[in-house]
């Protein structure tokens, strides 16, 4: 089958109104960011579109990141908005090879929110921060009228210390490099979907929200040399994260479809609902591209960390087709795996 390679092009924002798809993390989100917002703030740090921005302060490089959390329901099996806010922010730092140091958090609260709900979320944040060894050092609170927000929203700002042993840069990726995945995908997105109770589906499933720093730290300890790139595949899933990477390069990425780990509940829900698990959000996984000769050591390092037992090599960088992500299956069938289009799922983070 002829697969025609897309050219790299800067998106233009011509949409007349904001829709849910602009927040889904896929094609529309990217167009909003690169086509409307970034041009106004244009600078080299922003233009890299990394999970965390590196800035120099008096000769020291620090990694910074900001995030917003609007998930509904506020509590779901395996986590809650507070825990998500801490882990999500720290994970953006971690996949930039930055050891998280401190967080700030702003709460947008809806009048009428039970104080107990707020307190349990603050407590969830405190526990998650303590586990990760970071302090929440500041923030803000604002209250909006009843009906103007969905209980509560949290925005965060995080600071981390860059690990100087490694330089992550998509430009160093070469055909032959391996793509590693830290564990099973889709648990978070499907958990939220089911937790909303709008579907008559039940599954024994919990969100995968967790800090990924222990896994990143293991990679940094054991195989700094071949580590080229990392990303946490949150909104838009693995497919979107890899497409964003592939579009920057002069190579493509092949995913071995049968190798992608996922729980049967996730797979079953996706089959039933017509969703592609590769588009489903994750909150406790990350992808790494690593030089082929270091891949085995890297996998061993990941699997040695508790919770990393199901880490696998899910794909590889190939010279052709360029700027594409393709899925390859065990009988030689191929398909293009595109970014998420539209908004298949409710607010998930």
């Amino acid at each position, binding site marked *: 089958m002829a697969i025609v390679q*897309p050219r790299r092009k800067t998106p233009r924002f011509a949409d007349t*109104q904001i829709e849910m*798809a602009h927040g889904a993390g896929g094609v529309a989100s990217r167009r909003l960011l690169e086509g409307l917002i970034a041009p106004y703030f244009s600078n080299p740090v922003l233009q890299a579109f990394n999970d965390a921005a590196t800035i120099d302060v008096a000769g020291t490089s620090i990694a910074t990141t900001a995030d917003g959390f609007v998930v509904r329901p506020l509590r779901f099996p395996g986590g809650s908005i507070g825990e998500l806010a801490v882990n999500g922010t720290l994970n953006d730092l971690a996949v930039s090879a930055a050891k998280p140091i401190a967080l700030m958090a702003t709460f947008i609260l809806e009048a009428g929110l039970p104080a107990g709900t707020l307190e349990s979320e603050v407590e969830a944040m405190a526990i998650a921060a303590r586990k990760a060894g970071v302090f929440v050092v500041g923030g803000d609170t604002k209250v909006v009228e009843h009906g103007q927000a969905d209980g509560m929203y949290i925005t965060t700002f995080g600071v981390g210390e860059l690990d100087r042993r490694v330089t992550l840069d998509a430009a160093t990726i070469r055909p032959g490099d391996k793509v590693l995945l830290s564990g099973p995908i889709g648990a978070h997105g499907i958990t939220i979907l089911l937790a909303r109770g709008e579907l008559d589906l039940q599954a024994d499933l919990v969100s995968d929200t967790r800090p990924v720093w222990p896994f990143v730290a293991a990679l940094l300890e054991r195989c700094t040399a071949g580590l080229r790139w990392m990303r946490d595949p949150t909104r838009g899933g693995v497919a979107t994260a890899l497409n964003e990477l592939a579009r920057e390069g002069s190579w493509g990425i092949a995913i071995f479809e049968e190798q992608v780990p996922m729980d049967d509940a996730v797979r079953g829900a996706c089959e039933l609902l017509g969703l592609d698990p590769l588009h489903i959000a994750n909150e406790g996984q990350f992808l790494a591209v690593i030089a082929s000769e270091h891949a085995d050591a890297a996998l061993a390092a990941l699997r040695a960390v508790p919770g990393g037992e199901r880490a696998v090599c899910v794909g590889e960088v190939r010279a052709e087709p360029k700027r594409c992500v393709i899925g390859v299956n065990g009988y030689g069938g191929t398909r293009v795996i595109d970014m998420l289009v539209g908004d298949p799922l409710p607010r998930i983070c």
Partner: protein
Amino acid sequence: MKYVDEFRDPQVISGVAREIARTVQPGRRYRVMEVCGGHTHSIYRHGLRDVLPENIELIHGPGCPVCVLPTGRVDDGLTIADRDDTILTCFGDMMRVPGTKGTPLELKARGADIRMVYSPLDALRLAQQNPQKHVCFFSIGFETTAPSTALTILRARALGIENFSVFCNHVTIVPAMRAILDSPDMRIDGFVGPGHVSSITGCRPYEFIARDYGKPVVVSGFEPLDILESILMIVHQLHAIEARVENQYKRIVPWEGNMPALAAMAQVFELRPYFEWRGLGFISQSALAIRADFSAFDAERIFDIPGVRVTDPRGAQCGEVLKGVLKPPQCKLFGTECNPEHPVGALMVSSEGACAAYYRYAMRAAVEA
């Protein structure tokens, strides 16, 4: 996972693919139409094109519910959402189908109360939860979804719910297949018959295709192995100069169909004298309307529906693609003005639409080259 893994076993699939390659006669072309959008999706999703010989040509049929819904009916349905006291509900696929004033999703972003449901029963539940509102279900689909709409209407009546209605757009597959067979540019050697539709209708309705038109029909499942096996069965029939209806999907499809489902449909629905299909035009007795007996639940009788007819957007060649005359990328708008994010024609909307499947899985941005 049971009923999935055994039909995706790479070794078995490779075996059937090799058998097809061994069986086909070199120099002969085999033009096979997969009627159902679910098959189209599966063919691309699993890369089956890559394992089939070049001389088997797959033509994508009209069995995608949102694809065949004309723009006029979309506009008609969306007028119901204009009313302040009404919640319009529809399947997820419908949310991105463009009407003249925008897609349901765009209207929702502008404030209309339009909600996605996974089943008409969810819409009925919404009506029970919102007694001060009227809840209308924008029903689409072939015989696959029509029974659940019928049963929902029966339940609404049994429960005495008065704030619920259905905007009925159910269509039936056989008249569309006949229209394609009668089309002068038809070039099809055999059909991969619809699987889910047949689980309701059974296999008998296709017998005229074999008898009157001399074309094999193999009712097929949706897994990669199902589709390859069905193609092989069609090839065998063609070589034997036979034309029969065969059932490859026996684990789901009873030859006689699903009697209780057909009975519910017959109780609630009657055939419309004619109905407009996108690309295929008006086809007589090809769609279902709600019987007068259930008019309290019929949105077309409750609301003042304008009944507009809208021509397809200029340049869009949905009709030719639906009939299998053109391949998706041969349409002038494919990939440029019409893409999955901003579909002009409905074939680009649903993952079962030939254009969307082609765009997503095979030739993203084909026209950029």
